[in-house]
């Protein structure tokens, strides 16, 4: 009854001259509005309030749409946790699978807790240029942030925080004590990640400078990658990884199908990671550009890494091609909104090259990174951040034109400052964190346990119960 009255009242009012201002785009919009209003408007008796009521409802509709978009992004980024889990499990030996999956699982739990209690306040609360100081446990905050409900924004950011924490599990795999990992994952998500996040996304000193990192090449990947580097160098290599002559031997991953599933999940989740970082749909052009750039960079990263490894070692190595795709994704994360698709091709290709050489470099330095966490996230995180200053375009929302568009190195310089200071902060703070954990609970498991496998040693259960794993390494 009321429903039909409302509809007819609206129909009349669309022909009312007072409504012309709101009726901007002709008759097709009029019908869309009519349907939407019919579904959402309460009944208005007074005609004069109708104009502002429609404006208000369009606002609501916009916020609703943006919220759905950001929550969709949050869910996709959460699913990346599964991707990281599968990639890491696939690239390590069977006897440690249960352990790495427990770490992947628990670090998201710890990140959720840490980011709720402390992290969010440090990252987005009002404070100084170094860190925020308000909003512990989300108390005393505005319920709307950037035109989104606080809780949606928090979930999206918490999923990012979990991604940064979980990167380290792969780099320190197969030899790190589980209690040490739990403590580490709480500390990075409550303190270290949010501080860097505040600098760049929370109104801190780097964002004041004009540093641009659209979706987190620096905030998430440089932080995670360098934390992994610090941890993995402090842990020293796995037993049997380097011979007495320093030559690396192969401790091959035990399940390539799992690893490739993980890469596909990450690629899929990355669409939410990058495109969701718009925090809104707007007219759809930006999120579309981001999605195509994300896809192209990943594809070219895969092609480039495969081509290089094929040429250098004679065979197209799937594990390296997959690392290349991840490298492309990491690299496009910062510039995804600011560059043209052709630039995404270049960014991805170079990232694919970097990751192959990065893996070789680590082996030369005898730093044992079982899944390539540092080359993928650390080095390509920096590469992606610098790309903003090289390929970014003012017309696409960047403060200054990138180097190739104006020859002005301004933006590139700012990007370099941001990368260097983030690396310095992470290396020092994570160095302290890991050192303290080492002294208090111990960072590395015993040699016996390492040989036997962390599944039995740490958890008393096996990943592949009923199978006898035959391994000579």
């Amino acid at each position: 009854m009321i429903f039909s009255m409302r509809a007819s009242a609206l129909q009349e009012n669309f022909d009312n001259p007072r409504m012309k201002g709101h009726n901007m785009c002709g008759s097709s919009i009029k019908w869309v509005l009519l349907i939407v209003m019919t579904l959402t408007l309460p009944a208005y008796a007074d005609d004069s309030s109708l104009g502002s009521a429609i404006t208000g409802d369009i606002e609501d509709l916009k916020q609703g749409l943006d919220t759905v978009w950001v929550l969709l992004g949050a869910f996709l980024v959460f699913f990346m946790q599964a991707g990281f889990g599968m990639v890491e499990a696939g690239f390590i030996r069977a006897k440690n699978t249960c352990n790495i999956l427990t770490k992947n699982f628990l670090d998201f739990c710890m990140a959720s807790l840490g980011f709720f209690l402390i992290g969010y306040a440090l990252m987005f609360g009002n404070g100084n240029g170094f860190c925020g100081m308000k909003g512990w446990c989300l108390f005393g905050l505005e319920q709307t942030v950037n035109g989104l409900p606080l809780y949606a924004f928090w979930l999206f950011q918490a999923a990012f925080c979990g991604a940064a924490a979980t990167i380290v599990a792969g780099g320190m795999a197969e030899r790190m004590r589980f209690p040490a990992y739990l403590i580490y994952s709480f500390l990075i998500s409550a303190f270290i990640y949010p501080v860097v996040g505040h600098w760049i996304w929370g109104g801190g000193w780097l964002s004041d400078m004009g540093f641009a990192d659209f979706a987190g090449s620096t905030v998430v990947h440089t932080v995670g990658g360098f934390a992994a580097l610090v941890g993995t160098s402090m842990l020293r290599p796995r037993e049997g990884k380097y011979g007495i002559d320093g030559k690396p031997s192969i401790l091959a991953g035990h399940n390539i199908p799992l690893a490739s599933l993980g890469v596909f999940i990450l690629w899929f989740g990355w669409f939410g990671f990058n495109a969701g970082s718009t925090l809104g749909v707007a007219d759809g052009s930006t999120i579309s550009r981001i999605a195509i750039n994300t896809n192209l960079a990943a594809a070219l990263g895969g092609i480039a890494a495969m081509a290089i490894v094929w040429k250098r070692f004679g065979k197209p190595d799937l594990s390296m091609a997959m690392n290349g795709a991840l490298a492309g994704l990491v690299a496009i994360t910062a510039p995804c909104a600011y560059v043209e698709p052709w630039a995404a091709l270049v960014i991805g290709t170079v990232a694919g090259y970097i990751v192959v050489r990065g893996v070789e470099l680590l082996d030369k330095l005898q730093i044992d990174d079982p899944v390539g966490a540092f080359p993928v996230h650390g080095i390509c995180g920096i590469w992606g951040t610098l790309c903003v200053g090289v390929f970014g375009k003012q017309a696409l929302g960047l403060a200054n034109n990138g180097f190739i568009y104006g020859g002005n190195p301004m933006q590139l310089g700012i990007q370099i400052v941001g990368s260097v200071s983030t690396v310095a902060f992470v290396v020092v703070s994570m160095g302290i964190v890991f050192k303290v954990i080492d002294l208090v609970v111990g960072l590395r498991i015993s040699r016996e346990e390492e040989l036997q496998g962390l599944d039995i040693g740490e958890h008393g259960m096996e990943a592949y119960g009923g199978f006898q794993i035959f391994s000579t390494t």
Partner: protein
Amino acid sequence: MKLVIAYIQPHRLNDVKKALYKNEIYKVSVTNALGCGEQKGYHESYRGVAFEVNLLKKVRLEIAVNENFVQKTIDAIIEGARMGQIGDGKIFVMDLPECVRIRTGETGQKAIG
């Protein structure tokens, strides 16, 4: 000629291989084995329920050697596998009446070496 058979902890295999190599014993066969002995199993837990695993995973080594290598082989296996704990394993030494190398048809001590 003797046949040395040893059951060791799987995770000691690498150390045993290294010790054998050091003592110039380069030929060995390795198989997976399940067994129970003094160690009497270990406990695993699954969904909060602890259970005893009775048959333990072991690795079985078979090494055929000439008499002058028997002691060196035994020493190497002990060096690599011994932790001083129950479950370290056992070594059996038995006479080997004949040995033939398939490729050449050589027999006896020549075939082993």
